[in-house]
């Protein structure tokens, strides 16, 4: 009898401990905290991750979650260095965000090597779910194919059927131009010409002059950041939009629109996957986010971080461990996604997260009723159509 009781006690202790065994998860939010992408990503992504952890309520699942952050300064070697250190020394289980595609590609390699998880929200390269796809990486929020396709098709359909490209003369710019040109031609439009400008050009006047004389209805900006802002700002000066031509920003974020000011940016057409003012759920979340980030508005990248972290934690709760990156990613692909920001969605075998995209147009100054009111929704692109079809991606995981 006493043996049985002691055995029962021991058993209870063993099973009891197992049931109480905590799953520790450490999340690393790596992005640009001080440079070009600090506003669209940066500290705001940390806030978004914290909100996700709060909403998940780790205690209720027997988990303990910790968040750390780091600045990769948009440099691939800094990023890969931090990733290695995080995985080898600091016991980080998952890296989130990482804007700047070159850094994301480097981090993706390291993550695969160490069998952890990488959830990309900030970077754009569609290669991450294409030739460089990985069983440890999931690409959230957006990518270049989606942007090109969304903006390109929508504009051609609404009458913008002749295009002229202003392309940043490096790999990313070329890729943007190539993808968009393909979309435009497929939709029945025509590319009248292109001019390549050096990266980080201050003065676009001569390139704009060439665009103007082409008489194309749409001037496609296959560049990003400061180049896009300079081009649009100087375009206003040269009366581009007044002359009947339209700018299409192929990689423009809401933070760029704020830098330009509505007066200069009005009428600009662009594609994003989330906007704070689209519905009540988004607005409520934005209020919570703004508690830590006064005076700023969240971007789609922040929303993507929230959504990705939430889904990741759900997957870890199901697999009961964060150690095996591939296993967690497979679980994430098996579970359909659902959160207040992106609604219902799913993750494809190639690591691409699917959700709807929206065509936005920048409001005129007189149309903006309150701070942050910058976009009108022009069109909704369904999730199934928004992203590159899986068969076109050349992802080695899928073709095998």
């Amino acid at each position, binding site marked *: 009898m006493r043996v049985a009781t002691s055995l029962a006690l021991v058993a209870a202790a063993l099973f009891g401990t197992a049931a109480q065994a905590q799953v520790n998860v450490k999340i690393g939010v790596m992005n*640009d*905290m*001080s440079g070009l992408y600090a506003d669209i990503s940066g500290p705001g992504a940390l806030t978004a991750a914290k909100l996700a952890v709060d909403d998940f309520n780790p205690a209720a699942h027997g988990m303990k979650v910790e968040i*750390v*952050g*780091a*600045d*990769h*300064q948009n*440099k*691939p*070697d*800094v990023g*890969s*260095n*931090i990733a*290695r*250190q995080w995985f*080898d*020394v600091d016991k980080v289980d998952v890296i989130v965000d990482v804007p*700047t*595609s*070159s850094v994301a*590609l*480097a981090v993706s*390699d390291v993550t695969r090597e160490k069998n952890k998880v990488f959830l990309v929200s900030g970077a754009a390269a569609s290669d991450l779910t294409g030739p460089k796809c990985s069983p440890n990486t999931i690409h959230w929020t957006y990518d270049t194919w989606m942007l090109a396709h969304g903006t390109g098709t929508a504009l051609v359909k609404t009458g913008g059927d002749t295009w002229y490209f202003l392309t940043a*003369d*490096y*790999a*990313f710019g070329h890729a943007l131009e190539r993808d968009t040109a393909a979309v435009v031609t497929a939709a029945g439009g025509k590319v009248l010409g292109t001019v390549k400008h*050096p*990266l980080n050009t201050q003065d676009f006047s001569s390139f704009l002059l060439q665009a103007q004389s082409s008489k194309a209805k749409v001037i496609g900006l296959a560049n990003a950041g400061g180049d896009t802002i300079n081009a649009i700002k100087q375009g206003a000066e040269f009366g581009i939009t007044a002359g009947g031509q339209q700018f299409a920003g192929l990689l423009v974020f809401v933070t760029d629109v704020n830098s330009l000011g509505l007066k200069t940016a009005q009428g600009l057409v662009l594609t994003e996957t989330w906007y704070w003012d689209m519905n009540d759920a988004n607005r409520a979340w934005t209020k919570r986010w703004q508690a830590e980030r006064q005076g700023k508005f969240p971007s789609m990248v922040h929303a993507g971080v929230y959504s990705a972290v939430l889904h990741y934690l759900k997957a870890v709760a199901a697999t009961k461990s964060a150690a095996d990156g591939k296993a967690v990613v497979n679980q994430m692909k098996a579970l359909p996604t659902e959160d207040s920001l992106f609604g219902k969605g799913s993750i494809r075998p190639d690591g691409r997260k699917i959700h709807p995209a929206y065509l936005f147009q920048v409001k005129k100054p007189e149309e903006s009723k309150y701070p942050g009111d910058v976009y009108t929704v022009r069109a909704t692109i369904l999730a199934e159509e928004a992203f590159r079809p899986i068969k076109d991606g050349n992802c080695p995981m899928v073709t095998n």
Partner: protein
Amino acid sequence: MATLAAATPVRRETEWSVAVAGAALVILVIAAPFVLYPVFVMKALCFALFACAFNLLLGYVGLLSFGHALYFGWAGYLAAYSAKVWGLPPEFAVGFGTTAAAAAGLIAGVVAIRRQGIYFAMITLALAQMMYLVALRVPMTGGEDGIQAVPRGKLFGAFDLSNEMTMYAFVAAVVLAAFFLIYRIINSPFGEVLKAIRENEQRAVSLGYKTDDYKLVAFVLSATLAGLAGSLKALVFQLASLTDVHWTMSGEVVLMTLVGGLGTIFGPLVGAFLIDGMENYLSSFGQWVLVIQGAVFVICVLAFRRGIIGELAARLRVRL
């Protein structure tokens, strides 16, 4: 004309200080990977070599090159490319990168040596900036992405470098050997002529030395060793990117050398470890890196021109 590096006493009897410091260095290098994160130490070693190569030119010849990132970065690109695309084993990849840096150093040196002081600095800056713009556009370098997933390979066909400790042993051995080489260069008749040129070039000319030839050789040596550092770094990180050819990288090596001590043997080494460690520590507060770097520059120039090792050597009245 005020000389650039504070003159340190050159007394043969005090070579013991160098020997002691050298021994301490070897011990530290051997022990380090067991105490610190090996990848961090490897990175610091590569930068230390880079800084020592730079110091050879600035501290011992008195030529400030503001474009040394050219050799560091492009050697890295070529080593990475040859390892990844041509499948060269690591010793050949590193050799290829280093040789290319030597060639680049020769071409650049011939162009730049003809001018002194600020004009020399400006030419090196312009050359480096041009090669940065080329790196941005040429497909071989991968542009913004850089060359990624570079295989470390098997050293001499036998040692698998994907093992961190084996890689560390390789890097440490090469860096220490190069370091010793620099020491021998400085302490040779050739090195004495270089120092004479730094102190007073006119006088060296009047003594019959063809100073331009000496300066060119020093320049090529400096470029070659910087290239060695860059090639090693590309293999350590398995990545070669634009950061390594950007002019801010040229600025960083100036910073490391200044902080450590211009014209000292161990100065650049200490400076490299310090600056690297500082950046590592600060990466969580990334915003302040730029400000702190700038502040260090300012403080060093105003109050701390001899650098850490320079101050130490002066206080102890030894040669370091």
